[in-house]
Structures are given as structure tokens and as C-alpha cells.
């Protein structure tokens, strides 16, 4: 038996060439699925663990990228290109071969929000829902409780060690995920000074936007690109993209001007034309705020008033700026609006934003030396989004899967709860409805009109590069920080740099 096993392994490693005896033993050896799986096997056998130090780390966080979202996005991306969707692969599925499952529960919740999950990823500890950059000891929206319980992030270690750092988000740059890289706050909603509670003000807590500008680590982020402009502007400043709207701050601080005054190699941009004009060679610090609030969904981006770069374009420019540092860089790229589209019960935008992130991963991979760059893609939490029924192969992923017991069609994609549910009424008849329309809201069971919810199932971690092979099995979400730290040796580098000062 052992001998037979060896023979089979040997046969498998002989690429897809089936020897006569092998072909006779395995009757389906010429089957197209069999042959393609043999090729896939060879790709896996060729993988060699990379144990060198990671010069660079790029962490893609796709907010709300549940595993069904990955599957559906993969199918949609293929179908949009006119190829088989089910067997299609998104860029990160092809480029990041090491995969683990991530347990996303938080210190106080079965189902997470984006605040403690981001802290887990960039600081290595679990904490309470709604808190950012603090340990489990800090209580929600209790400023006093966060004192002394602030964490150190991988970005702060990188700055201490002399690396460059960058954050990109299609959401507000003060939103939970990017905020976890620099902010320490018991309240994720404290994005500008007007959001602070009396208790927070009394105990000296600062809003998230001001913490970004006042971030004491090294010489600050070299790249900041995202939305959330109003949180950095004074209430008497008209927005440059829409003069009818004003900044949010009432403390008199013009944070954009303060940031500009800090550097002599800086570019601040707020539209696509300005972004395109930025020269990475001469720009040491880049700050882009492209929307008052979140940036546009990828589907809606072409109609934006002043124009916005894509997440791929932002990633490309960021790497150009950051990679000038010979010591390396740490970059977070957040696809922040997959989550928002899911909350709206709108699968189309969730999937098209997920596809946009996949393109950004390809861009990043092409621009760096993958042998010295740890690239990770993961989600912070799941969503109650499902792929259902028994639709035929190549059925439009946004289409109808079949008919239910009520005689009405039901779609392949749906939500367990959210805006797509009726209140005490039968569900809508989709017989003449174009369910592939970008604005169609998938039906849901439980009516939660304001927002579909997150889900507690595990999410995936994909990785490639130095020590990427450490991502295997089912792991705690906060392991991500520990792998990044191990691969880059940043805790040691930061400690040595501090000692040398």
C-alpha cells in the first residue's frame, strides 16, 4: 500500500502526462477536469515557503468580504468578460496562494464590527466592538477607560524603524478600518470634534481626524488617500467639490492646512486631475481626500462631480511614493465599500467594488518584488449574504435561480436580513423584474430597513511573499499582526531604532 502511495505521488508530480499504466489505472485521466486539477496540483507542489525578511508589507482589507462575496464576485467578473464564471479566479486568488480562515469574533461580541477587527489585524489583540486602537480594557465610548490602554500598531513600528507608511481607503479615512492604523479611541464614531461626547471632551480624548494629523509616529504617513474630507475642514469652509456643503469641524482647526504646513515635500489633492498630476519622484508626502464622506462606489465613480481615482490607481501611486524608501514600507489598502453596498442590500455594488480591489491587488503585485513583499488580503467580518438555489452553470450570478413555493421567482443572491425584506407582507413578485440591474436590492427575510447586518462566519486570509505560509488552518484574526511583525521583524527594528536615538 505504501508503495502504491509513492507511485501515485510520483505519477502526480509527472505533470499531466499520464503514463500508460497510470491511464489504465485511472480511467478518467484524460477528463478535462482531471487534467486541469493535475496542473493545479503541480502549481501547489511548486510552492516554496519564503523565509526571508519582508522588506515591504501590503495589507488589503476588504470590508465585509465574506466568502460568498468572493465566490459571487469571481463569477461576475468572469461573466462580465464572457468567460466561465464558476471556474474563474480573481487576481488575489491566483496571486496569493496561502490561505487561512480567520475567526472574527471580538472580545465582547460574536459578530464583529470593523473597529476592533481592524485593531486585531494591525495591533494583534482583540478588543470591544466600537473601539479602535485600544485593548480589551477600554470600554465603549468611555474616554476615561482608554487611558493607558492604547495599543501600538504595525504602522507605528514601521515609522519608528524608518520605513515609509501609507493608508488608502475608499471609505472615509477616519472610518474604522484605516483609523485603526493611527487612532486610539473608545468611540469609532468620534470622527470629528463635533462627534465627541461631553465625557470624551472632559477627559481629553481627541477626534479621529485630528489624531491622523497629529499622529506622532516618525514623520507621519507618507501616503493618505481616501474620503472623509469634511472631517478635516472647518464648518465655515465650503467644500471644493460642492460649494453648498461645508466642513464639519467646529474647533477652528483646518486640518488640511495644518498637514500641509508640516512638510516641504507634500501634495494635497482632492480630485482626479490633481491626483494624476502628482509626481511620485518629487512627492514625499501625499494626502488625498476625494469626497466629503465616503468615495464613490466603483460603479458610480465615472459620474463623480470632480472625478476620483480608482482603488487600483491609488494603490499604484502609493507604491510609487512609498517604494522610494530603501528601508521598505507598510501599506494598508481598504476596499471600504463592499460593506456599505451589502448594508444597503445591493449585491451589484458589493461585487463590483470587490472586483475593483482584485484589480488593485494585481497592480500592487506587478509593481513590487513579490519575493520581498508580504501581500495579504482579508476581510474584517462577514455579511449575511448567500448564494442559493440550484442555478444552472453559467446562469447570470445576479439572475434568478428558480421558483419558490409561493410560485414567484427567487434570485441566486440574497440576504438573511436587510432593506430587501417587506414588513408583514408577502415578498415581491420578481417575474418581470430585471434582477441584474445595478440598483436592484436582493430580497431578504428579516426586515432591517436601515441596514443589513454583518455576519459571524469566518472570513478568508490570502497571502504571498515572505512568511505567507504561516497563514494556514483556522486562525485568530489577530494573528495577522503577528505574522506581519514576524515577517518584517519590525518590533525588533523599531526597538533598535529607538535605542539608537
Amino acid at each position, binding site marked *: 500500500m505504501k508503495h502504491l502511495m509513492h507511485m501515485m505521488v510520483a505519477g502526480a508530480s509527472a505533470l499531466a502526462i499520464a503514463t500508460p499504466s497510470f491511464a489504465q489505472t485511472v480511467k478518467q485521466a484524460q477528463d478535462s477536469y482531471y487534467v486541469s486539477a493535475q496542473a493545479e496540483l503541480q502549481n501547489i507542489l511548486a510552492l516554496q515557503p519564503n523565509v526571508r525578511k519582508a522588506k515591504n508589507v501590503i495589507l488589503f482589507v476588504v470590508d465585509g468580504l465574506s466568502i460568498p462575496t468572493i465566490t459571487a464576485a469571481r463569477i461576475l467578473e468572469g461573466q462580465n468578460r464572457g468567460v466561465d464564471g464558476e471556474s474563474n479566479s480573481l487576481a488575489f486568488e491566483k496571486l496569493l496562494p496561502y490561505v487561512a480562515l480567520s475567526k472574527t469574533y471580538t472580545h465582547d461580541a460574536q459578530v464583529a464590527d470593523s473597529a476592533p477587527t481592524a485593531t486585531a489585524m494591525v495591533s494583534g489583540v482583540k478588543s470591544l466592538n466600537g473601539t479602535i486602537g485600544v485593548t480589551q480594557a477600554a470600554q465603549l465610548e468611555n474616554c476615561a477607560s482608554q487611558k493607558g490602554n492604547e495599543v501600538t500598531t504595525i504602522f507605528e513600528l514601521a515609522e519608528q524603524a524608518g520605513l515609509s507608511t501609507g493608508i488608502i481607503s475608499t471609505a472615509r479615512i477616519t472610518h474604522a478600518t484605516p483609523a485603526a492604523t493611527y487612532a486610539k479611541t473608545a468611540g469609532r464614531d468620534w470622527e470629528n470634534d463635533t462627534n465627541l461626547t461631553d465625557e470624551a471632551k472632559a477627559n481629553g480624548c481627541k477626534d479621529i481626524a485630528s489624531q491622523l494629523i497629529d499622529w506622532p509616529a516618525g514623520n507621519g504617513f507618507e501616503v493618505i488617500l481616501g474620503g472623509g474630507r469634511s472631517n478635516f475642514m472647518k464648518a465655515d469652509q465650503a467644500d471644493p467639490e460642492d460649494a*453648498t*456643503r461645508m466642513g464639519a469641524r467646529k474647533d477652528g482647526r483646518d486640518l488640511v492646512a495644518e498637514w500641509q504646513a508640516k512638510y516641504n515635500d507634500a501634495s494635497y489633492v482632492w480630485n482626479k486631475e490633481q491626483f494624476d498630476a502628482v509626481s511620485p519622484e518629487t512627492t514625499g508626502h501625499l494626502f488625498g481626500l476625494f469626497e466629503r464622506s465616503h468615495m464613490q462606489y466603483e460603479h458610480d465613480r*465615472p*459620474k463623480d462631480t470632480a472625478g476620483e481615482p480608482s482603488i487600483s490607481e491609488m494603490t499604484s501611486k502609493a507604491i510609487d511614493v512609498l517604494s522610494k524608501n530603501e528601508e521598505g514600507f507598510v501599506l494598508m489598502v481598504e476596499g471600504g465599500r463592499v460593506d456599505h453596498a451589502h448594508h444597503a442590500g445591493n449585491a451589484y455594488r458589493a461585487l463590483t467594488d470587490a472586483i475593483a480591489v482584485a484589480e488593485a491587488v494585481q497592480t500592487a503585485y506587478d509593481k513590487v518584488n513579490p519575493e520581498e513583499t508580504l501581500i495579504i488580503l482579508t476581510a474584517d467580518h462577514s455579511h449575511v449574504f448567500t448564494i442559493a438555489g440550484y442555478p444552472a452553470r453559467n446562469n447570470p450570478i445576479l439572475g434568478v435561480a428558480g421558483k419558490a413555493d409561493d410560485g414567484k421567482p427567487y434570485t441566486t443572491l440574497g440576504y438573511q436580513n436587510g432593506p430587501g425584506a*417587506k414588513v408583514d407582507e408577502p415578498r*415581491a413578485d420578481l417575474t418581470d423584474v430585471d434582477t441584474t*440591474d445595478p*440598483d436592484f436590492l436582493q430580497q431578504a427575510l428579516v426586515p432591517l430597513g436601515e441596514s443589513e447586518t454583518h455576519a459571524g462566519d469566518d472570513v478568508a486570509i490570502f497571502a504571498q511573499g515572505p512568511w505567507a505560509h504561516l497563514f494556514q488552518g483556522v486562525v485568530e484574526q489577530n494573528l495577522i499582526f503577528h505574522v506581519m511583525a514576524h515577517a518584517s521583524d519590525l518590533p525588533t527594528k523599531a526597538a533598535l531604532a529607538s535605542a539608537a536615538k
Partner: protein
Amino acid sequence: MKRREFLSASVLAGAALTLPRTALAAAPSLKFRDLYSRGRELTDTAKALEGQEIEMIGYMAPPLKPEIDFFVLTKLPMSTCPFCETEAQWPIDIVLAHTSRPVDVVRYTDLIRTRGRFETGFKTDEETGFVSFVRLMDVTYEKL
């Protein structure tokens, strides 16, 4: 100008669903996505419908108060009244819908088909002081 005093409309696609037609007679339909070409620039399609009776499909945002004769038509469900939540991050692609009688409220997650006279251009409501950019006048509507 305060956020709550400004009601505008712009960008983005609309509830362009092919839905079963009911008792309403045919009128040109305008999708949210065909309202603006970019920013607050109206499309030629939208410009050509100025003054005409049209149909739009969307969602009724929760009205400001009971016994009111207008509501906001949105592309996607919005759970908050645009005038009640000054800090709400409202999209700019919203349409002010004036009704000839007090609004019979439809839940904000239920699609409605509206029909009314299409008007564009900034206009300040004399009674409320609210400013709008795209309106449907003398609106009737039905739940889908």
C-alpha cells in the same frame, strides 16, 4: 447655506427596474441613472423631459412630519428624513416630490412608481425655505 435647507439632486443611477405596469397610463420614464451625466450636469435625456409628465421609480424617504405635501424620492432606501438629520450623509441624487394632498406614507424600503411634472433648476420653497434642484410636481404614486 445649512445642510438641512438644501435639497438637491444629482448623479447616480436609479431604480431602473422593469416592473409590472399597473393602472397608470404610459408616460416617459426617467431612471435615476439617466438624470445626470456627471456631478449636477443634467443629461440630454433629462433636459428634454423638462415640463413633461414623467414616471420615476424609487423610494420614499421618511417625510419630515405628518400632514405634509412633499417627500423626497431616493434611488436607494434612506431611513432618515433629510431635514431631520443634519449630519446625515445624504447623496445628492435625490428628487423633491410635491403632492397635491398630504403624503400617504410608504415605508422607505418599498419601491414606488411616481408620476409628476418634471422640473429642474434651483428653486426655493417659499413656505419652508428648502432649496431643490430636481422636482416632480403634482405627484401621484403607487407602491410596487
